[in-house]
Each structure stands twice: as C-alpha cells, then as structure tokens.
C-alpha cells in the first residue's frame, strides 16, 4: 500500500459560493488482496450462482501447457501460438491456404496459464466476439498493413517472418515460400475489428476482397486447442523470433 500526504497551497482552487474551500488533500492507493480485506459474505453469496453457471460452461479442459504462455513485443510465445492457430483454422474453414494471419496486439487480453487450458482460458485471452475474415490485399497493401502495426511495435503475425528497422518493414519471408511483390495479391486472416478500420487501419477498407468465413476468432482458437489436446502433446512456450528489429 502506498500512502501520501500532500499539503498544498490550494488558494483559488475552489470558489466560495457555498462557503467551503479545499484545505488539504491526501491520497492512498489501497491494494485489494487477501491481506487488505476478507471477502464480504453477502457479495460473495450474490456471485455464487453466476460463478456456478460459469464453471459449468467454462471448465472443459482443452489441452495443457508446460509453462505460462505470454504475449510479448516484438515477439512472444503467445503471439506465435495464436496467429499460427488462426492461420491453420482459417485455411481449413476457407478451403484453401491463406498466406498469413494477423492479430491486434491489444486484442490479446490475457496470457495462458501453466497446466490446464480450459474454455475459460481462451475466453480470457479472446473475450471479444470478433469474426475471423479473409482479406485479399495487394503486396503494396500488405506492406502498408505490416508497417502500420510495426510502427507501434505491435505487429503480431503468423505465416511470415519480417525484419523491421525504425518501425518500417524492410523484408518479408512467407512461410509458404512466396515473396512480397507490390502487384501480386495475398490473403490474410484477421479480425473483422481491424478489417473494419479498428486500430486506425482505415486503409483496409480498400481491400480487393473481404470474405466472411462465419468463424469467431475465439471459436477458432477453442477448436485449435481442443485438437491439440487430442494429440496428447502439451504446448511449450516458445517463440521463433519471426519479428526481428534491426
């Protein structure tokens, strides 16, 4: 807990209509944890039925991990895992290979724990009801997309490796062997939120084609992790360093 006492010259800070003026102000940031407070019984009881409802729907164990899987900048094990998962699921649903996948960094809302990955864990990572969409872009627009997110060190992609200098993408290598050519076209699986211009990516509204595949990002992830679980292999937190900053 942090405590502060501040005595200040507050003259003029408050007017005198009803006759009071501020004379002193102190502040205190109270950490809320088991040390500072026990749970209030009536609020805990109120929550109980809601929590039971959650437990019924959120406790399916999909797979497990050998350690915490966390997001990072520019690279993180969670960045790689989620974009690779989306690329695979999107390609399956789309019926043909998609060139790469993209996620907005701010849209990854939590990390994955060590041990059991439940449906609830995926809801924590991806609480939004965003749809996966497939955009067809020119090479030039792909470059613009990558630069837009690289500028804020928030580039999260699957299916390609890239080198970045001064917030600008210098080179791109697609996992499927393609090279980035300004006038060729590429497909990318991404959130409808970004495709609609979210995170100020307004240029994506000029995509050559936009196809809805009727697949919630979260559902795609749940399907992927359930599939992983069936393999019996736990997920290990690794990143392949696909974004390199020079």
């Amino acid at each position, binding site marked *: *807990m*942090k*405590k*502060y*006492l*501040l*005595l*200040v*010259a*507050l*003259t*003029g*800070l*408050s*007017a*005198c*209509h*009803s*006759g*009071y*003026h*501020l*004379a*002193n*102000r*102190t*502040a*205190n*940031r*109270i*950490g*809320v*944890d*088991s*040390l*500072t*407070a*026990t*749970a*209030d019984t*009536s*609020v805990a009881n109120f*929550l109980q039925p*809601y929590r039971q409802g*959650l437990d019924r*729907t*959120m406790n399916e164990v999909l797979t497990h991990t050998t350690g*915490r899987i966390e997001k990072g900048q520019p690279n993180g094990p969670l960045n790689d895992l989620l974009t690779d998962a989306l690329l695979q699921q999107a390609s399956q649903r789309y019926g043909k290979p998609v060139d790469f996948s993209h996620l907005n960094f701010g849209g990854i*809302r939590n*990390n994955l*724990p*060590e*041990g059991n990955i439940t449906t609830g864990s995926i*809801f*924590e990572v991806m*609480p*939004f*009801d965003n749809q996966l969409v497939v955009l067809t872009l020119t090479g030039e627009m792909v470059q613009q997309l990558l630069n837009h997110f690289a500028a804020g060190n928030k580039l999260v992609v699957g299916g390609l490796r890239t080198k970045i200098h001064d917030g600008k993408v210098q080179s791109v290598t697609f996992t499927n062997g393609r090279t980035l050519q300004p006038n060729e076209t590429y497909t990318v699986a991404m959130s409808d939120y970004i495709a*609609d211009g*979210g995170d100020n990516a307004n240029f994506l509204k000029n995509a050559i084609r936009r196809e809805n595949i009727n697949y919630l990002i979260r559902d795609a992830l749940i399907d992927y992790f359930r599939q992983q679980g069936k393999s019996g292999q736990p997920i290990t937190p690794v990143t392949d360093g696909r974004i390199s900053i020079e």
Partner: protein
Amino acid sequence: MAALASNRRQFLKFLGTAAVIGSVAPNVWAGAAGKNASLTILHTNDVHSRLDPFPMDGSRNAGKGGVARRATLVQKIRQENPNVLLFDAGDIFQGTPYFNLYKGEPEILAMNRLGYDAGTIGNHDFDGGIDNMVTQFGKAKFPLLIANYDFKNTVLDGRTKPWQVFEKDGIRVGVFGLGIQPEGLIPKDAYREMKYLDPVEIGNDTAAKLRSAEACDYVICLSHLGYKYDNEPKVSDVVLAGKTRNIDLIIGGHTHTFLDAPVVANNLDGQPIWINQVGFAGINLGRIDLMFERGKATLTGQSVEVKS
C-alpha cells in the same frame, strides 16, 4: 479456518495502518480556524468484469482484486467516515467469461451492492452493443455520467446524464463524465448514431456550470480519455487538465495506468489539480481524502510529500 484466522489478523493489521493515516489529517488541521468538513473519494477504473480475484496461477496479478473484498474495504471506510463517494471511470464490462455469459448483469448488480455513487462509460462498455447497455445500465442504481457522448437518436437517449451534484455535509461536489473518441476504437454498429463531442470544450463548459450555476465546492471529472499519450495527438487527462479550468480532480481510466499517487497538473489558471488512475481489474481501490474549510482560502503553503 486457519487461513481465515490468518486473513483476519492481516486485515486487522491493515486497519491499524489505516487508522494511523486517518489520525494525521486532524492533527495537521487542529490549529486551522473555521469549521472543517471532510470528504473521502473512492474510485476504480477498467475493472473489466473482474468480479473474482485473479486465479493463483503464478502470474503477476495472481490473487489480486475481487469485488467481494472491495465491498469489505468500502464498507469499512464508510464506517469511519460518513462522507464517502464511490466512483468508477469506465470499462466496467468485458475481460472475463462473466461478461460473455451474463452480458454485464453481475458487474452492475455488484456495483449496486457496493453503493457506487456514479460511473462513466468506457469504450468496452459498448462491447455487448448499445441495446445491451440499455438493458444493463437499466439495472444500475447509480447514474452513468457522460457529458460528451450525445445519444440522441439512439436507444440510450435519456438513459445517461452529463453530470450530477452530490452534497455531503454541506459540501457540494459536482461530478461529470467524459468518454473517448469512438472512431477506430468502438465498432460503429455498437455505438451507431451516437455523437462524440470535443471533451475539452464540453469539459470546460460542464465544469464552469458546476462551479458557477451549481455552486459546487469541488468538481470531479470521471474520464475514460486515458492518462497520457506520448506520440499521438489524442486528448488525454493530462491534455484535459492543461486546457480547462474549474476541474479539481480527474479520475481517469482507459490506459490501465498504475499511478502510485495522484499526479499534479496545472490547469489553464495555473492551479495544481490532481489526476489519478489505479490500474485495472479492481487490483487497487483509489482513496482521496479531502478536507474542506469554511470561508475563502487564505492559506499559502508548500507541497510536502510523505511516502512510505
């Protein structure tokens, strides 16, 4: 039982600390003339549906937060001082499966139980769509204050208020809310025909009205603008503070900023106002204790900071 007893001990230890803090202010002001009145402001921001504490999974925030614990803290503080106002600076919704399953109902009902006095609207409060806001905000026993969102021609029209005045022991506290630019942040079909108005202009007008026409002694802005932006020309709490007058305290949100203590910013008149924000997920409860004196301010003093 052992765990419970231990918790209780630690809780009592905490109360001991709080009692010490409480005794500081009266001593300091023992010599001051005129009738004093005190007011305690409690606040949260970006709680993001975190009703339960974070799970004990080894993560940075493991075991922190929890609305039932916050209830205990708020109750205790209210017992110590009857003049308490409890506010939230937006993004009540979204972030745990509670929201996906129940669309915000337990969040709002829990806030009713804690006795929140007012809240403002964050961008993620639109995540269930504007119709869901009507449904869930309709369950709130506290007003949603937002001065720069014009909901005319939407279903939310008339369901929010720009500001409200609270009176405690004769102290008039004016409170208003400001929301962030929705474009590029909130899907258009979630906010529909809502109009975003300039927070600096509206903030200035509203604060002036609260100070003058409403004769408020203290003016608080509940803001979901975000604390500060380094490389973007976006209106933040820091920008708002510098471009307005008549605001005494900005309780902020959106950027999930963990301020150790309120930041002092000079307003348009060069007066040192406070900006505070306490992280996210209900990990912290912000507490600001204000002491008021009758009459005009005559005192000039200097800043002294005591940190422990």
